[in-house]
């Protein structure tokens, strides 16, 4: 049994299973929900098996079909990919289960194949070992995400989806041009090989700029964030959860990989400072807009804009504690933000609207949903005990240790703003409103899924040593000794 687990190419399963699942959901729409559920279960099990394999035997590469690079595709599995795959699997499972309740039986059957396609693309992205494979995966992710955004078919959804499409295509194109330049200079697309070959040069500088700009656009860094709030706010709740929790992480993951492995260290300092400045701007702007938002989903979307700003603060800090912190932030934000959107979905299902001031005693009527939102909010605010707190601690520590205390200041201001808008929602959930509307009962499954996800993000704060230790697989950096 042990031998099977440690030698089977689980990463291939992780990509193929959702692909086949998507196909079968398209071909047999009537049983789409069950097909989707089974596919996601298979994914979760594969991630666990992959984790066991990586922990026991270390990181490794798998050439698909036996064809080696550069013409063949090689998949790379190391600690960083494992953690991203893990969070994708967990959030994916929660969203799938939630959607079986959110989309009643005959409606929106196109959701399932698109959703599984998105999962396949995300998995492929986290397992890619070379730049071009990353491009394909990025494009796939983008297209699937846009299609999901447009799913509900309303005017707002279509328009925001079109804008999102243009943004994502522009981002990918910019990235591809950068890949071209790098390939031309160094003759390889493989990340590991490039890590050794890349040296400073003007061409690399342009490539860095192009790729970073493209990826920053896809990750919605201020001021390139314009497409995100309408898209995330007008999509159906499970889709918004997937978009905020997973899709923006995908492009950031690519940027992180490039930064850590491909971009030459000497040339990245200025870009890092620029990212840091934009990150601070994102924190302020996102926080401000979230406070002003009158609708819950828009508030949560702007919260994502703010948290993306946090991510980019790791670049000017560029030390082990900062990378560990930002990674932990990626994980806990994914869980918490997905939980928040699912909770918002519950509220919309219940009362038909998401106007915050008109929440009529949600605390009494939907206690589990409010608990899910509040717990997720604890992680977003970075209060203990939660994954967000651990991440905030690590990043503040990195900031103070390196003497660049202003990033810590931005982080703290961001947390205060986050507390303000989370408790704005929670506060109104306790009070009564004058206008009473029609309400629908929310299926228990939907409430439990949201709560479970929120609890996971809290749990992440209690078990921090283990995921951070797994980061060492593949030797990217260590979270223990170098601090």
């Amino acid at each position, binding site marked *: 049994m042990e031998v099977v687990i440690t030698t089977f190419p689980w990463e291939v399963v992780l990509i193929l299973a959702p692909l086949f699942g998507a196909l079968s959901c398209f071909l047999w729409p009537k049983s789409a929900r069950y097909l989707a559920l089974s596919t996601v279960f298979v994914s979760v099990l594969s991630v666990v098996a992959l984790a066991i394999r990586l*922990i*026991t035997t270390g990181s490794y590469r798998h050439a698909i079909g036996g064809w080696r690079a550069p013409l063949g595709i090689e998949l790379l599995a190391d600690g960083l990919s494992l953690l991203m795959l893990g969070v994708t699997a967990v959030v994916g499972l929660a969203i799938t289960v939630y959607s079986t309740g959110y989309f009643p039986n005959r409606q929106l059957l196109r959701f399932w194949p698109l959703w599984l396609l998105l999962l396949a693309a995300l998995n492929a992205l986290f397992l890619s070992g070379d730049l071009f494979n990353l491009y394909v995966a990025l494009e796939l992710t983008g297209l699937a995400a846009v299609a999901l955004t447009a799913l509900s078919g309303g005017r707002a959804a279509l328009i925001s989806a079109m804008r999102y499409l243009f943004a994502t295509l522009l981002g990918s194109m910019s990235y591809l041009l950068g890949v071209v330049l790098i390939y031309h200079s160094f003759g390889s697309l493989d990340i590991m090989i490039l890590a050794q070959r890349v040296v400073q040069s003007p061409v690399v500088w342009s490539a860095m700029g192009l790729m970073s700009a493209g990826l920053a656009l896809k990750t919605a860094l201020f001021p390139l964030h314009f497409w995100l709030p309408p898209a995330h706010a007008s999509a159906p709740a499970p889709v918004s959860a997937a978009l905020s929790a997973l899709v923006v992480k995908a492009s950031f993951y690519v940027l992180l990989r490039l930064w850590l492995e491909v971009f030459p260290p000497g040339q990245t300092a200025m870009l890092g400072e620029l990212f840091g400045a934009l990150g601070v701007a994102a924190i302020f702007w996102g926080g401000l807009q979230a406070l002003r938002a009158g609708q819950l989903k828009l508030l949560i979307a702007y919260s994502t804009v703010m948290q993306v700003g946090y991510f980019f603060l790791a670049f000017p800090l560029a030390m082990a504690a900062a990378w560990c912190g930002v990674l932990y932030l990626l994980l806990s934000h994914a869980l918490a933000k997905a939980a928040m959107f699912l909770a918002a979905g519950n509220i919309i299902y219940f009362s038909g609207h998401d106007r915050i001031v008109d929440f009529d005693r949600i605390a009494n009527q939907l206690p589990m949903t409010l608990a899910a939102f509040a717990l997720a909010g604890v992680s977003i605010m970075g209060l203990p005990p939660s994954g967000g707190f651990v991440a905030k*601690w690590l990043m*503040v520590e990195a900031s103070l240790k390196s003497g660049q205390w202003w990033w810590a200041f931005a982080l703290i201001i961001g947390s205060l703003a986050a*507390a303000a808008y989370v408790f704005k929602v929670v506060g109104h959930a*306790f009070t009564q409103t004058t206008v009473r509307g029609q309400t629908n009962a929310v299926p228990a499954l939907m409430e439990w899924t949201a709560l479970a996800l929120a609890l996971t993000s809290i749990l992440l704060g209690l078990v921090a040593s283990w995921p951070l*230790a797994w980061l060492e697989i593949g*030797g990217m950096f260590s979270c223990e000794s170098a601090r």
Partner: protein
Amino acid sequence: MAAGVVGNRRHVFLRIRKMSASATLPLLILGSSLLPGLVIFFLPESKVRIRTALNLSGALLKLVFVGVMAWGVFNGTTYETRLPLIPDLEFVLHADALSLLFVTLSSVLWLVTTVYAIGYLEESPHRSRFFGFFSLCVTATVGVAMAGNLLTFLLFYELLTLVTYPLIVHRGTEVARLAGLTYLRYTIAGGALLMIGTVWLYTLCGTLEFTYGGFVREFASASTNRETLVVIFVLLTAGLGVKAALVPLHGWLPQAMVAPAPVSALLHAVAVVKAGAFGIVRVIYDVFGIEFAANLGVTLPLAILAAVTIVYASVRALFQDDLKRRLAFSTVSQISYITLGVATVGPIAAIGGIVHLVHQGLMKITLFFCAGNLAETLGIHKISEMDGVAHRMPWTMVAFTLGALGMVGVPPLAGFVSKWYLGIGAMAAGQEWIVAILVGSSVLNAAYFLPIIYTAWFKESKGTWPAEQPRGRAETRWTLLLPPLVTALLALGVGLLASAPFSPLDWAQLIAGREYGR
């Protein structure tokens, strides 16, 4: 245990250690309120008996565990729980004399308040939610008490903020929502300051473990200059000072009185404000060390700030007609006695401050219980409505009188003992001005407490009460009557028997001795 080989190092990626008995007891103390709390959340409103049983059994169990731990510590056992939290920093629960003092106080008072809350909230809506958060609140308080390093302290301190918020907004009115917002503004900002100070201290010292005599002097690298340490001290004290209601960070406390009486009683007289004061004691004694802190020159400003708080809050209390608000300002004033005691460099003043943790808790909770009784039974919220109420509710007013006289500092009640030690300690430390503050505040205490007693006992009642409940055999439900009498007797007892072994005073002497005797 899952292990693997990466590079040349063999890593253990998943280790679950077996814990010894002495490591599990602190966790058991936490769990005795955490688990019932979590279960209570899911109970339907109608299951009154189960909920009451869970509440009381949790409280009793906690007392038992605390008793076991106290006995163990007395016999020399070390109780410590260590769990990995962040790489290189652990979650530490540790039982030393100071933690035991606070844990015991919290556990005893939790039991009493649970009984009171069950009575007070009879027939109220959303009791499951209330008691769930109530239990979580005690868990957080006990965690604060037993925290063994600054990180664990911070964790439970912030958790306390989060779980007390739903209790403040429990009633669901617009007033409650606004009070909750004010509470959050203060406490979250305070928490942020505390966090920055903690992380900064960690980057300078590499450790956050509470050690007798403080760890800063030993671990702060030679290149750290004094100004940085002073700034860190200010950050930490400001963060803690919000909960400890140091002027000008006290604004949330009077507004939080909109919460139901059991909440005001336990939380704002005992748990939340004590957590802040306790934190200040920890920072001065076990983080910086009293000598080092005095050296840095931070103790005198803190003492002055505490003195200002004492006087200012007492003056504000004079002008309040709402009974709970007057008690709230009295709390603000009295908590600063603790801060004053530890900021005065000298063992006797320290004893006064530390023992006041217990004494003030007992007396203040009595007062809040009585205020709750008046509100619940007779609809009285203002002092002007209290004319002659002692004839209608004699036992409640007896308890109130005991508590109030104790606050004023009448011997041999508990408050007198604390003030006596503070005064003697101040003179021994050469800070005679503190004695003037103590005398002045006692006068002010008398000025705002004695009229209440006079109004209740000696004035003619107006005949009808604002909202009287039908009278049963006793003046009010026994669940509302018994707790204040118990705590009043305890307040009397700790004063009368202050020189007995194992009294809070004896304990405080032990703690101060450890800190100063090195």
